[in-house]
Structure formats: C-alpha cells, structure tokens
C-alpha cells in the first residue's frame, strides 16, 4: 500500500442538514481505500435545530477520535455562520468549503442576538483558503433541497485523498437499488458541487 496521508475533516452545520450522513460517506469511502478512520459526533440535541459537528479523522492508524483544536485540515460548513463559528479549528494553511446559505435561528430572529453581516468576508479575513458554494441554490435548482449534502460532498471531492469517483459511487449506491431516480439526481448534485468548487465558488 502506498503511503497514506492523514486528514482531519471537521463537518459542521445544523441538525437535519445531513452533516452526519456526509461524514458517514466520507468515512466509508476512506475505509474502502484502506484508511483507518474514526468518526465522532457530538450532536447534542441534533433534531432540535442545534449545532451539529462531526470529526472525521482519516489516516494509517487513527488514535484519538477528536481533532485537536486548530488542527483541522478541512472544514466543511453546511451553513455560513456555523463555518465561522468553527473556523478557528482549522490549521494555518487549511481549507474551508462553505455553503453560503444563512439559516437564522429563533434567538436571532427574536432579536436577542445578531447574525453576522458578512460572514464570508470574516472567513476570508482568516487568511485560510475559503471556497464558498451556494449549495442551497444548486440543490433547489435540481428541485430537491435535501441534496445540499451531496452538493457539499461534490465541492470537497477534489481535496480528499481518494479518487473523486469513489465518493460519488459511495453516495449513489445508497439510492441505486431502491430509488434510481434519486441516484441520478445525486450524481447531478455531486457534479454541480464539484464544478462550483472548481470555479472558485
């Protein structure tokens, strides 16, 4: 086996967005390619609109399931304020791929707190490599907002230590047998995310 690089991926978002599913697909694809993987999730009350994060650590042998503070190589943000919240977990030189969608919680809507005016500018100001993706629009364009996580996986596909096609197949195999139409739709979502990331967001 060739030398396998290690990678710390932090996936963040809000309960219900598909953060856990995306992390699971990343982990499963890595295993298929001979990596050791640990995947941790502290969802809190995930179904209740709270913050969800998942650490996916990929390597030859992974010990701790927790990415040390400031040691994430890649942050996949499913919501832009969430990406900002976790941006300090990314190592210098690391990368942030972020869905630019804004999801305003009741505490902000109710006037207790403010949503950042320009979270993308704040992310860019960190000096990290930032790749903004309008995943919500891309998914909506395909007629199914639940495709956001597949769009996001497509967007990070070029930054992973396994072939792009491998992850696409991993996503599609979840649907192929039971819902072939969804499989095709997921292929499109994956391609749309990949193209958007390639185009610089």
């Amino acid at each position, binding site marked *: 086996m060739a030398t396998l690089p290690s990678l710390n991926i932090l996936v963040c978002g*809000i*309960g219900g967005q598909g953060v856990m599913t995306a992390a*699971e697909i990343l*982990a*499963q694809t890595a*295993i298929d390619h001979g990596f*050791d*993987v*640990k*995947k*941790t*999730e*502290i*969802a*809190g*009350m995930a*179904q*209740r*609109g*709270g*913050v969800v994060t998942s650490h996916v650590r990929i390597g030859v042998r*992974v*010990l*701790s*399931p*927790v990415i*040390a*503070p*400031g*040691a994430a190589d890649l942050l996949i943000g499913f919501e832009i*304020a*969430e990406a*900002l*919240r976790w*941006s*300090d977990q990314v*190592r210098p030189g690391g990368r942030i791929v972020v869905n630019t*969608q*804004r*999801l*305003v*919680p*009741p*505490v*902000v*809507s*109710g*006037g*207790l*707190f*403010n*949503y*950042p005016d320009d979270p993308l500018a*704040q992310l860019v100001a*960190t000096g990290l490599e930032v790749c903004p993706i309008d995943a*919500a*629009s891309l998914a*909506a364009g395909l007629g199914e*907002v639940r495709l956001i996580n597949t769009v996001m996986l497509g967007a990070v596909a070029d930054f992973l230590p396994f072939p792009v096609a491998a992850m696409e197949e991993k996503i599609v195999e979840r649907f192929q047998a039971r819902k072939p139409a969804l499989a095709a739709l997921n292929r499109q979502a994956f391609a749309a995310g990949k193209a958007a990331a390639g185009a610089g967001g």
Partner: protein
Amino acid sequence: MNMVVKASARTRHLLSGDEAVARAVWEAGTRVSAGYPGTPATEILESLAQYPDIHAQWSVNEKVAFEVALGASMAGARSFCAMKHVGVNVAADPLMTVTLTGVIGGLVLAVADDVGQSSSQNEQDSRYWGRFAHLPVLEPADSAEAYAMTKAAFALSEQFSTPVIVRLTTRVCHVKALVEVGEREEREVPGFIIDASRWVMVPGNAKRRVPLQLEREKALAAYSETCDLTVEEDGSDRRVGFVVSGPAYLHLREAFPDAPLIKLGLSYPLPLARIRALAGRVERLAVVEETEPLIEQELRAAGLTVHGKDVLPRIGELTADIIGPALRRLIGEPEPAGAPLPGRKADVFPRPPTLCAACPHLGIFHVLFAMRRRVVIMGDIGCYTLGAGHPWHALDSCISMGASVGMALGVDKARGKSDKNKAVLAVIGDSTFLHMGMQGLLNIVYNRGNVTTLILDNRTTGMTGGQNHPGTGHEIHGDEAPQVDFAQLCAALGVKKERIKVVDSYDLSLLFKTVRDEIKIPEPSVIITNRPCTLIGEFVRRVAHEVVEDACTGCGNCMDLGCPAITVRKRDTQELDGESFDRIFTTINAAVCTGCTMCVSACAHDAIRAIPAGTPAAGSCC
C-alpha cells in the same frame, strides 16, 4: 436494517461504540436484553432490537430493566441491560443486592457516562458503582474495545458469578471506528433452580453471602494482575509513566507517544502489583482518568506517589490538548513550537436547540408563559425541558426523571412567602411519567396535595430520538403492544375523574381555560395534552400557513409561540399618541410549517391563514 446485523464473521465494519456493544451482546449468545432510552446509551438497545434470537425490550425504567436482566440471569440465560449513567441511580437498589447473590447466566450492565455533559443533567462517574457494589468494571477506549470487552464481560461474569459493569463514555458510544465482528454462540438455558438461600435475601441468608462477596472481590483483584484486557506498553520517554483508562488512553497516546503506560481494561479491581512495577520503571507516575480521581486515590492509599487531578481537570473529557500542556508543565517541558494559537475565535450567536415547528409542547408553554406570574412550574426531563428557555421561560426546574411531580408537592406543602398565592404545576412527558412520575402523582393524591399535573403525551420518548414506551401502543421493534390509557391510569391513582382533562395541544384557548380552571380548584388535577410528536409516524402534516402582510399589525404575538417556522421579516417603531411601539412583522417558512394553526390562535388580527390552494410553492431556504 443496519448492515452490521447481517454481517458475517471476520468482516470489518465502521461501528459506533453502541453498535459494537450490541453486536458483542448478540454474539455472546445473550437471550434477554433490556434498557431505557438515555443519551448516549440509547442506540445499544435500538441496535440489539434488530438482531434475531434475542429478546430486546424497552423497560419502563432502568430499575425494571436491570431486574428483567437479573431474572433472565437467574434462569441461567446470558442477559444484558444498558442505560445512561443516571439510570444506574434508579437501578441501584437491585444492583446493590445482586452483588450478594451473584449471577447464574452472565449478566452485563453497560453504563454510558456522559463525560463532557453533552446531553445530561450531571456528570457522575459510574466507576464508583464498582467500588460501592464490589463489582468488576471494564473500560473500553473505542468501538473495537467495546466489542471485545463486552464479550469478555460475559465470560468474566460467569467465571466469578458477578454482574459486570462495562463503563462507556459519550466518546465511546458515539464514535465510529473499525470493528471486526464474529459469530453468535448458541447457549443452552438451564432454567431457574429454586434455591432460597441464594435468592431470598432476608438478613439470615444475606449475611452469609457478604463474606462471599468480599472473597470474590479479592479473587477479582488477583485476576486483575493477569487479565489481558489490561495492557502495559513500554516507551523510551520515562519522565512520566501513565496509568490510564477509557478513551483518555487514545488522547494520551497522541500527547505522549513514547511514554510507558499501563492501560486498564479491567479498571476495578486495580492490578496494584502491575502498577507498582510501572512506577519502578519511570521517574514519576500520573493517572489519566475521566472524571473522578478514583484510581488516583486508591493508588495513594496503596502508598504510591502519583499525580492526577493535581494537574488534570476533574471535569469533562481529557483530550490530547488538555493532557499535553498539563503534563508538560509538570515535567517542565516547554510547549512545542507551532502549537495552535488561540484567539481566532469568531464571535457568533449561540444556536441553542429549540422545539420543532408544530411541536405540541409549544402551545402549553405559550399558555404557561401567559400566566407566568401566577404559577410555579416544576419541570422534568424531555424535550419539554426546553420550555425553560427562550421565549417561554415557563419551566422552573429539571432535576431527575419524574421529579416534577414529587417536587411540586413539596413546593405546595412548603408554601413560602413568594408562592403563597401561586398555583403549583408539574410538567412531565408521557415516557417520563411512566418511568417515575406515577408514584409522585399517587403521592400527591395520598397526601392531599394541591397540584395540577400536566402530562404532555406526544406518544414517544422524544428527546432521545423517538423510542416506544407503554403509552405508544408499540414495542421496541415497532410491533403492536398494549397501550396504557393515561386518563384511566391517573384515575386509578386516585385523581377524581372530573379533575382529569384531556385537551388538544393545538387548541390554545381551551388549553388556557383548562389550566386556569384546574389551578383554581384546590385538589389534585391532571391535564393530558394529546397531540403526537412531529417527528413520529403518527403525526400528520397539514397545509402550510402564511402571514398576510397587509393584515399584519406587527404586534409580534405569534413570535411568542416560539415556533421556529416563524421568523422576523421587518422591525420598526411606531409613534402613536406620543408613545412609541416596537413592531415586529413576521413571515412563515412554508417549507417548515406543518399547518398546526397554533399561530392562527395567537394572532389577534387574523393575519395568518392557510396558503390558498394553487399558490406556487415557496422556496424552502430562509
């Protein structure tokens, strides 16, 4: 069905600690398994329920679950139960005596400690039960170990005739790692053998078993010295040697890759001779354990000089970034260059969990908020605990399962200066009421309390992800089961029939009127709300609603409902007769709204209506 259930022997799978424990329980030939949902242990029983040839059940509470497992063990079957850390408090009564009787079929208790308190009311350390009940405690670090140690636990249980505790933590339960699985071993169940001296724990019989319990503990201590679940790892960096258990081992190895250590798989009783041998090979000894200094204190009592909680925190997880700096300070080593610098933390609003759109609890908290100054609201454990938060602030306590009812009677009987003229309410969910609330209600009736108990029956154990219970009409596999009738149950506990009201959770005015009427009557009363949780199959989605912008006056009443589908469209200030009023104009996210109509009742201006048929679907993004 989860893939692992059908996985053949010697294949590797990415399993959570909970799934790994379940697989091991099944492979061990276990016949009976029981539990009560509780984060982070819930998925163990959920997973077990998918396996063939094993009885799995949700019991009404952890004590009953443990007793079910115990009975199966007495009959000679391998048996298992799982619960979160606070569940053991409930199960402690049988646990503290079965330690005298011992077991027949292997009996394993998996306890999930919520180290870091992601979803619990406290952070108690279950390893104490090992010391308290003289039982062996195993501490896996990850899924693969959780699998191996759970299997070993059954053999250990039978070898020493003792229940065995497998102590998990959130970081084991909810971390997925690769596990190689095996196959199920089929075992004969001999059946229950009558033996009063063994099973009838009257003082005469029990006294004779106390010395046996202590002999067993001694034998386990001797076994600990050779047990291969505990491993020594040598290393060249002898400045500190470590005694470590659980997932902290993995973090420690990242912080100190070359330090000699002993990793305790069987962490109670301690292998003192092995630890002494390690102490002799290193400059100093440090104990890394989550959360209480149990091992540390026992090593001190044994005369060893050790570091532990003098340098490490007693709260929360011991991750590499905590262990590294703490121990480097101890040995006077500077932090390595290139360590991540703090200070980039972005200031982002909190995003606390909230009740769902159309959650039936929204209405009751809206109503309680409206009468906030007149009521004391003793709360309980479930999704509805969120009623304590914004914007309702209509829940005044959360202590333990079922405590709302007991505490409410205490508040009623105490009647201090501030609450002399207030009504006392208890708010409790369906599953929690059946778990431990029934006794409290009986106690209110018996002691002539003046408490109104609100049973929020949403037909599921919501907060843990929607598990069945005796009030749902279904059992753990989803098959039909006898369904308890809450009104009849309360009547049987002695609440007068005319003081038991079943109310539609969505009918705000009826809800308000019912609560107002019942709290005026100075005797026990019960109000049962009846709409299902929006996340279960029984829930029926209806036509989404919209705010008619021209009719909206900006009063903001609908916002007080706390429904996450309702958000602010615009704010302004209106001047009227020299006074200024803040106005909040709202909008409803049609993709999230399920048409429960609670906001229609809350709106004083008829500005909310069902979206007329034929209206193009709104975008679902906020």
